[in-house]
């Protein structure tokens, strides 16, 4: 029999609810796995063994009393460092929040707990979710379970590596420009960024407020649907959360995609896409065709500007969002400051890493008097054009398909010297954030190097149901099984 830590969330949930296994046993299986394997992967920044055992015990008590133990009864999950939890620390993998204890839980943390989830601990990330390799963490270096010399992607690198190495049943990530989908792709798991407004951001430490969205990284598409059932919904604490009904996404996984129109943006399949990736994504499209979907060409002419627009808007918002980390009320404060101004400067200089400092400065610049119109305002206008491009494309198709990442996982240090090179890692993912669409990355095979590749599907705003239906149909019919990551 396979170990519990190798099973999916829905398998665990069903087994726990049917009393085939106790939540305590499942938690123990994962805690043992973490103790044995995480020293190689280094995905966890904190492991909450006692806390997880107590949560699992509560689930078991409920089941013993015959009560409903929730839609995620006994499912052990890991949480990205950027999500606020009263338990443990919330550091955003930054020195400036070293040891910071949040006075509140994120809305989704409360929802997950109410549904019987068990929290194993927190997962490493790029500092303040800024990066595509998790190399910007001030805490530790997380490795890709498929090749320990390679990065897990980012910024939710810990979340992706933990799922790929069976260190949690699923994990929570956040996605501002691809931070769930790109690491999911690089680590060979499923990662979904819901539509902006689908999931409450209350308790997600903000990087770029108009782009950030929480989502799950899972072992399969069904788990993604299961997780979204719990995560989605209007939250009175988040004014930007959408007041729309949340369907049962697991009901959308019918396997039937006949007549669905799959759009291929011509701009995403040009020469600049490497042959191997191209072949993998094209064969994924063939699988969908074989299931009765219709493939149409669409055009997203403003896509070329997405990266530039993204790095203006996200840095502008970040420059304000990160202003609060000043050493006045919480977090790191430089001990050798004479006055207030010096305290700000020394604190921020000492405790923010170089990428965070770069983005704060860039964002401050694009908002400055005299530059605002040329940068920030223009970027907002182009953002609208990009959204209109997608709106037009979605009149011709129901789903858009692209690669998730232009390359599979790369070695440590390969792109750290050139920020622009690193920024290109998100070339296929950032436009969904700009256009506030839902997007999902699903594994589409292993490259010759033995590293996973991923295909990305995008859908109309709030049409996660169709998105999951297509992803699920692809997963079931691709004939691809990655197998387990070697962790070597």
């Amino acid at each position, binding site marked *: 029999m396979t170990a519990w830590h190798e099973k999916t969330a829905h398998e665990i949930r069903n087994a726990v609810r049917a009393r085939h296994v106790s939540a305590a046993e499942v938690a123990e299986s994962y805690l043992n796995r973490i103790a044995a394997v995480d020293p190689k992967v280094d995905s966890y920044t904190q492991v909450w063994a006692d806390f997880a055992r107590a949560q699992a015990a509560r689930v078991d008590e409920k089941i013993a009393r015959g009560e409903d133990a929730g839609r995620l009864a006994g499912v052990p999950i890991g949480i990205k460092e950027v999500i606020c939890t009263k338990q443990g620390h919330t550091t955003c993998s930054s020195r400036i929040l070293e040891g910071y204890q*949040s006075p509140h839980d994120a809305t989704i943390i409360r929802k997950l707990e109410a549904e019987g989830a068990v929290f194993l601990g927190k997962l490493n990330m790029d500092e303040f979710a800024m990066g595509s390799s998790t190399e910007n963490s001030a805490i530790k270096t997380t490795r890709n379970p498929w090749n320990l010399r390679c990065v897990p992607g980012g910024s939710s690198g810990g979340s992706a590596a933990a799922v790929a190495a069976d260190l949690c049943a699923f994990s929570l990530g956040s996605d501002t420009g691809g931070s769930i989908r790109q690491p999911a792709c690089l680590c060979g798991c499923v990662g979904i960024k819901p539509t902006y407004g689908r999931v409450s951001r*209350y308790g997600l430490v*903000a990087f770029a407020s108009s782009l950030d969205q929480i989502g799950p990284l899972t072992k399969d598409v069904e788990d993604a649907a299961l997780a979204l059932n719990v995560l989605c919904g209007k939250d009175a*604490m988040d004014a*930007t959360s959408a007041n729309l009904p949340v369907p049962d996404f697991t009901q959308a996984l019918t396997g039937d995609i006949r007549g669905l129109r799959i759009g291929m943006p011509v701009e995403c399949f040009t020469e600049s896409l490497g042959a191997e990736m191209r072949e993998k994504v094209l064969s994924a499209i063939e699988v969908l065709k074989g299931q009765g979907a219709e493939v149409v060409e669409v055009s997203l002419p403003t896509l070329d500007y997405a990266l530039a627009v993204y790095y203006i808007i996200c840095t502008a918002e970040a420059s304000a969002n990160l202003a*609060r980390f000043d050493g006045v*009320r*919480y977090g790191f404060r430089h001990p050798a400051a004479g006055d207030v101004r010096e305290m700000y400067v020394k604190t921020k200089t000492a405790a923010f890493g170089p990428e965070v400092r770069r983005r704060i400065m860039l964002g401050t610049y694009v908002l400055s008097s005299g530059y*605002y119109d040329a940068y*920030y305002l223009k970027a907002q206008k182009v953002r609208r054009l990009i959204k209109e491009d997608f709106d037009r494309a979605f009149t011709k198709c129901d789903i858009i398909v692209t690669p998730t990442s232009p390359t599979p996982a790369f070695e440590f240090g390969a792109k750290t010297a050139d920020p622009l090179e690193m920024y290109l890692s998100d070339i296929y993912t950032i436009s969904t954030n700009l256009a506030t669409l839902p997007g999902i990355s699903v594994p589409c095979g292993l490259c010759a190097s033995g590293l996973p590749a991923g295909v990305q599907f995008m859908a109309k705003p709030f049409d996660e149901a169709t998105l999951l239906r297509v992803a699920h149909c692809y997963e079931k019919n691709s004939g691809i099984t990655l197998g387990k990551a070697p962790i070597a």
Partner: protein
Amino acid sequence: MEYEAVIGMEVHVEINTKSKVFCACSTHFSAPANTNVCPICLGMPGVLPVLNREMVNKSVAAGLALNCTISRWSKLDRKNYFYPDMAKNYQISQYDLPLCSNGHLDIEVDGQPKSIGITRAHMEEDTARNTHTLGGGQSGVDFNRSGVPLLEIVTEPDLRSAQDAYAYLTALKQILQYLDVSDCNMEEGSLRAEANISVRPKGASVFGTKTEVKNVASFSGVMKAIEYEIKRQVELIESGGAVEQETRGWDPDRGITFTQRKKESAHDYRYFPEPDLVPVVVDAAWEQRIRESLPELPLPRKHRFMEQYGLSDYDANVLTGTQAMADYFEAAVQADADAKKTANWIMGDLQALLTEAKADISACNVTPACLAEMIRMINDNTISGKIAKEVLAEMFVSGKSPKQIVEEKGLVQITDASAIEGIVRQVLADNPQQVEQFKAGKDRVVGFLVGQVMKASRGKANPEKVNEILRNELAK
């Protein structure tokens, strides 16, 4: 050369919602330091603001009362600057699309009407309060005030004197209190006024260089600061100098303004739309609901009082000073009392009692109906005006009706001629010397004798009747 001053005002008023503008904390910031706080108003990581709908209601009401256009679609923006009293190091405010714009407030200065343009009124959050009195070089921050709702009201440069500014502030405060949108208490900081002041040769069309005077703690302080600043600027120009654009503070003890911040260090606030909040959409129906709920405003009410009740400008002004006062007056008049007499009683004896008790008319024991009843009792000679003062004082303490008090204390006026004749005869018999003097032609002693009769009747005799009967008896 003759100069004229050009003045614009920026007023911040705290809107008296129960909870703060973006969180559920109470707005009572006089509580012990850092007790009315939560992760949101402390700017903890991961929190989000949610706009208090009541803040929008009250701001729209203020905007409508100031004859503003209410934006169908407005938004909130982040104003970025670093200061320890800023929880997030940005303030949520409104930049290019304020909720209210293009209004005006009609005021009267020395009886002359004047219209002051209102450029805009926008919503924002208050900051925390720094204290530097902890000792040992330490500073403290009290976040109770952080996130208290503010409405910033900006005028056109339409004011020309300190008196204009005073009249504007008074009218603004009166309106905001009528609307119950703010306490407008300058000492407690719920109203803060800044004046932009420049001078120019009379008749010139271009503006002079302006200075901004901040941190003045009272309306009279604002008036004095403006007067000082106008004088300072004129003297500076006359002596060949030039006014520098700067922010100046007011020293009430020395009665002078002083440089606080030069223009060079002006901030670049890097405003941009607040992505954590959705646009504020006030549709026509919402605006109409608020418009219909607006009370009659002070100035129109004053004019109506003059017209409808024949009151003087002064009396109508005093009686419309607060909504409670005006409502009290009208309630009494509607309870069938003479308007002018009611005005006199309210502004005279009742106000004196209120002032002495440091009480507000809204919490007065004397109901308008009782005051009206008392005035009617004077009119129909049940009691004299003098007795009425006694009755009112008793009403003020006990809240009893005047009728009850008059009955209990036997204060009904004596108008019966035979009863008064009896007292008069007794008084004449007791004062033969004065009767002699009268007969010798000294008419003045009548006053003394009347007084004796009133005293003998314990004030209850009708004074007119006493006079008449006394003269008749003396003539005998």
